[in-house]
């Protein structure tokens, strides 16, 4: 497999390496240093860094601006883009702006509903959904056309196209079909929802491999270390689409409070070790939520350091 874009992530995967990505959540203010500081901590330990797009529908510094900061630092950013807040005009405009700064990865998302966030009384957009966004980026890149039909003579996006998938959402039976649909639309890499239920994930991956999808799309297994048992309980009970088995909650509850973070890291490392043996897993997406400083330790202890250099 040859990389078709200048994306570092695509090159790493094309060379057959296990990829490692992580993400930084921008601040809820205009501070110029927050994102570079977070990214600086992890840049040598990952291949690309996602910048979340107003995640959980909370207003934050914009993903594109933060991606530009990473790009200026020489980091390969993954521009997360949700369709909740932008219509097709704004989306394509942002994609062209990202292209002008040499941003080569996009993660296409529909986005959390605004009722989850800090502006529940806002109007949503949802002109497109994630699948349609994937198709849009692909068309702009491969055909040089905008949705409206305009043909670009130059400056086409060169983007490695990603999407999210949640093997733990319902109905489970269509989760493989849904991935197939995103692949048909043009998705080249997938960052999954955080995996805690190994059995269910493996069952999903089996379905993915049975359809041969693992050869068409690079699946990066999503992991999120738990900081403490409170976080585990919150994720289990309050975050839709996240499947935290009781055993994990119990295990964290079983160690003293000051040791829970360490136990959370240990669980995460065990998960990575188990996941790398699963057929079709091509890398990891480590989402250390407001805990970016732990990413280097996780990557090192998981035996994924140093990161390979590719051209």
């Amino acid at each position: 497999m040859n990389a078709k874009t200048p994306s570092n992530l695509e090159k790493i995967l094309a060379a057959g390496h296990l990829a490692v990505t992580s993400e930084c959540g921008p601040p809820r203010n205009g501070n110029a240093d927050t994102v570079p500081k977070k990214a600086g901590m992890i840049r040598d330990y990952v291949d690309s860094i996602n910048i979340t797009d107003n995640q959980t529908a909370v207003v934050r510094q914009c993903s594109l601006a933060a991606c530009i900061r990473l790009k200026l630092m020489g980091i390969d950013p993954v521009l997360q883009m949700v369709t909740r807040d932008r219509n097709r005009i704004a989306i394509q405009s942002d994609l062209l702006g990202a292209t002008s700064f040499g941003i080569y990865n996009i993660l296409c998302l529909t986005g959390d509903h605004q009722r989850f966030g800090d502006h529940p009384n806002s109007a949503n957009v949802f002109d497109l959904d994630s699948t349609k966004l994937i198709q849009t980026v692909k068309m702009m890149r491969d055909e040089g056309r905008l949705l409206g039909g305009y043909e670009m003579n130059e400056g086409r996006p060169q983007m490695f196209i990603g999407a999210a998938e949640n093997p733990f959402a319902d109905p489970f039976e269509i989760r493989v079909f849904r991935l197939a649909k995103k692949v048909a639309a043009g998705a080249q890499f997938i960052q999954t929802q955080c995996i805690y239920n190994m059995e269910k994930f493996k069952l999903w991956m089996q379905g993915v491999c049975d359809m041969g999808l693992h050869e068409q799309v690079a699946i990066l297994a999503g992991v999120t270390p738990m900081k403490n048992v409170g976080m585990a309980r919150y994720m289990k009970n309050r975050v839709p689409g996240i499947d935290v088995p009781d055993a994990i909650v119990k295990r964290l509850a079983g160690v003293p409070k000051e040791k829970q973070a360490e136990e959370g890291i240990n669980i995460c490392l065990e998960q990575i070790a188990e996941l790398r043996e699963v057929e079709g897993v091509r890398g990891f997406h480590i989402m250390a939520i407001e805990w970016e400083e732990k990413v280097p330790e996780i990557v090192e202890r998981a035996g994924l350091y140093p990161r390979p250099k590719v051209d």
Partner: protein
Amino acid sequence: MIMAKAKPIDEIINMIANFDKILLAGCNGCVAVCEAGGLKEVQTLASALRIYFSQQGKRMEIDEISLTRQCDKEYLQELKDKMDTYDAVVSLACGAGVQFLAEMYTQKPIFPAVDTCFIGVTLEQGVWSERCLACGQCVLATTGGICPVARCSKRMLNGPCGGSEKGKCELSVVLNKEIPCGWQLIYDRLKSLGQLDRFKVPAEDKDWTVNRDGGPRDIVREDVRP
């Protein structure tokens, strides 16, 4: 049918407090069926307002009427002769009726007494539920007769999203109520119809120009025009 619910009475009192003679005009169409703006509700509202203003020691004359419909001129005409005798009209019709009344009687203050909510169905007595957003381009043929535009909180055409859990929309957690996931409903239905293949193909692009574009949407049918 168009569903509406009564506005809080304080809001209505504030609208009319400076007048002396008003007409409460109900509508015997949709809002009567959903028990928000028919003759019965006109009578109830009139009684409540009379009690309020009499307790305040304010003289307020209130007349009651309910028209067959407020979205047709011929029925609105029925008010023509008496209109001059009122300071204002409070309409219990849907937003369309209130506006049509205002369009016909341009010199008269017209106030809404209900909040118009949605196009929906009667689930059981006293319970109404939304089913259609009037998006102007019906997709029900491909979704098993269940509308993703109206029933998916994100209007996804390629759902369900990653937040669907045990048949419930992810918003169930935030809103503290059981909201069925529209795409779970579509899945169940397509499965029972043996049409699950529809899930494998990305949906056609949605043309929102028929949804809310270029002022009020009109339908002009030459075949039924005079």
